């Protein structure tokens, strides 16, 4: 499955262990390790959990509990573009729900990755761009005063 998506690197148990070990010098290293794994592989593979647990001398349940608690940690590869649409109050006041509906009509549904793997859409509650709403984070870059046309333009870039 991952092979179809060039942006997601193939799972590599040795690399997971090495990455985890390299971050254990920090106090409370689990979140930094999970962030590093997601940055490297695009998601947290189920097979990484026992390795991280072993490195940190935690139970698998404890690591699983942390991975599943936070919205950021993905359990499966994402699309080539990742869009986090703000749906909090300031963006609501400026019509973010209309934006979400317009995108859904074009096949971009919240919480889903498009069938061709081009984009994943997620909800987020506040990006701190409230004075320039509606806002979204697209591939880690903040965008403001968004319209459906502009979003489609950004998502349809290669």
């Amino acid at each position, binding site marked *: 499955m991952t092979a179809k998506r060039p942006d997601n690197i193939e799972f590599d148990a040795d690399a997971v262990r090495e990455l985890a070990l390299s971050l254990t010098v*920090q*106090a*409370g*290293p*689990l*979140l*930094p390790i*999970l*962030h590093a794994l997601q940055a490297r592989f695009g998601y947290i593979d189920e097979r990484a959990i026992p390795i991280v647990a072993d490195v*940190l001398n935690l139970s698998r349940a*404890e690591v699983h*509990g*942390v991975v599943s*608690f*936070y*919205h*950021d*940690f993905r359990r499966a590869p994402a699309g080539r573009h990742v869009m*986090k649409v703000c749906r*909090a*109050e*300031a*963006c*609501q*006041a*400026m019509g973010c729900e209309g934006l979400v509906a317009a995108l859904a009509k074009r096949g971009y549904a919240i919480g889903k990755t498009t069938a061709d793997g081009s984009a994943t859409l997620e909800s*987020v*509650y*506040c*990006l*701190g*761009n*409230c*004075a*320039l*709403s509606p*806002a979204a*984070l697209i591939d*880690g*870059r*903040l*965008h*403001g*005063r968004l319209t459906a046309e502009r979003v489609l333009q950004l998502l349809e870039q290669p």
Partner: protein
Amino acid sequence: MTVSLYIPGDSAACSVGAQDVAHAIAHEAARRGANVKVIRNGSRGLYWLEPLIEVETAQGRLGYGPVEAGDVESLFDAGLLRGGAHRLSLGRVEDIPYLARQQRVTFARCGIIDPLSLADYEAHGGLSGLRVALARDPEGIVDEVTRSGLRGRGGAGFPTGIKWKTVLEAEAPQKYIVCNADEGDSGTFADRMLMEGDPFAVIEGMVIAGLAVGATMGFVYIRSEYPAAFAQIERAIAIARREHLLGTDVLGSGRRFEIEARLGAGAYICGEETSLLESLEGKRGQIRFKPPLPAVAGLFGRPTVVNNVVTLATVPFVMARGADAYRDLGIDRSRGTQPIQLSGNVRRGGLIECAFGLTLREIVEEFGGGAASGRPVRAVQVGGPLGAYWPQSLLDTSFDYEAFATRGGMIGHGGVVVFDDTVDLAAQAHFAFQFCAEESCGKCTPCRIGAVRGAETVAKIVAGDSARDNLVLVRDLCEVMRDGSLCALGGLTHMPVLSSLDHFPEDFEHRAKGAP
């Protein structure tokens, strides 16, 4: 002669094209052989004018905005580098009424200096507070902060000096300073602006806090929704280490202080201080029972100061100018200034730092200019997703902790979100429960179950299903959540819900009567 041009590097300014403008200016300057020094400043907080660029002239800093990349050629033609007139000319930026009317204390440098130039920071008053602190004993620092009347700007409004005193008096081999930069409240962006536009102020405030309580290690916990702020703080920490603002010899004093930046992972609850500490320790962000307070047993069980970004960035001013200079601003028990973040459906959204005591109407109408849609303003939510929705009749309330509390509201972290007359308060009440359900850490039952049941019950009211009975049920549920929840998430969800019910009953009632 080299001309200084300021183009904000602030992520919100870049979200509407500041980066493209910077590229276009670099290109145009090179094409014309103009000698230009570009400074990527923070934002002034006049967001409706972003991208707002400024040119340094003999008359001061002259602004242009909102600038698009396509405007750059005509700006150069109009003599941008001499401050020439153009249809986007704003005149002297500091004379723009929105800014001229403010009292910038915590944001005094934001948007003005190069955020990553320690020399610039120092030239604008930076480090003088730390130098004062280095010459005092810990009690002297704590006393100064206590006398200033500074209260926690994260939302709870707890007196900062009292928190520090508790940590100072706690005996432990290690203490910590934790900067809460998990600015999760919707409608707020003051922390983000400071971290991007004046990161050394946050660092200086943390070092002073460390000196005050005897801590040598600090963490900045930044939400992952703020990747630009995280990167900026990391850059500032690296510079601060190199320049001995951090490390084993702070400004040559022989004192030690170190800071590490940590990234959150998308959890609103981690703005609650005990959840944040759990998260920093690498655990699920579930809240802790209190007591013990974090000031007694916080990070890794050690005495810990947890303060918001704005609070910590205000401390250098208090030390440099003295407690009275801060205390003289504000009204009643709300001393000093509050950075108000105005947003939503409003013509002029932005950052307004003023002494406590503006009325909400002055903020929404005079600063904000009313709804962006041109329609009447119907509701204003103050204090984030757990803040109350207020109608026009409450807009004359003074913006301070007590005035809001006596009317069933709270100023929280200072977010003001404006809605026009198309808003449906039943939908907003439903959203408040949904949000609580989504973000509940699950530790206590009233919040975990109550939020889900609340959303279901409001949905029934909206659908006209036993609406009158269900309205009674919602009020009862709000009471249970308010009194029975362990932290402010479940404990304050009643605020947006009940304020909607109390001030906008018509949005629920027409459904209660069975109308569509």
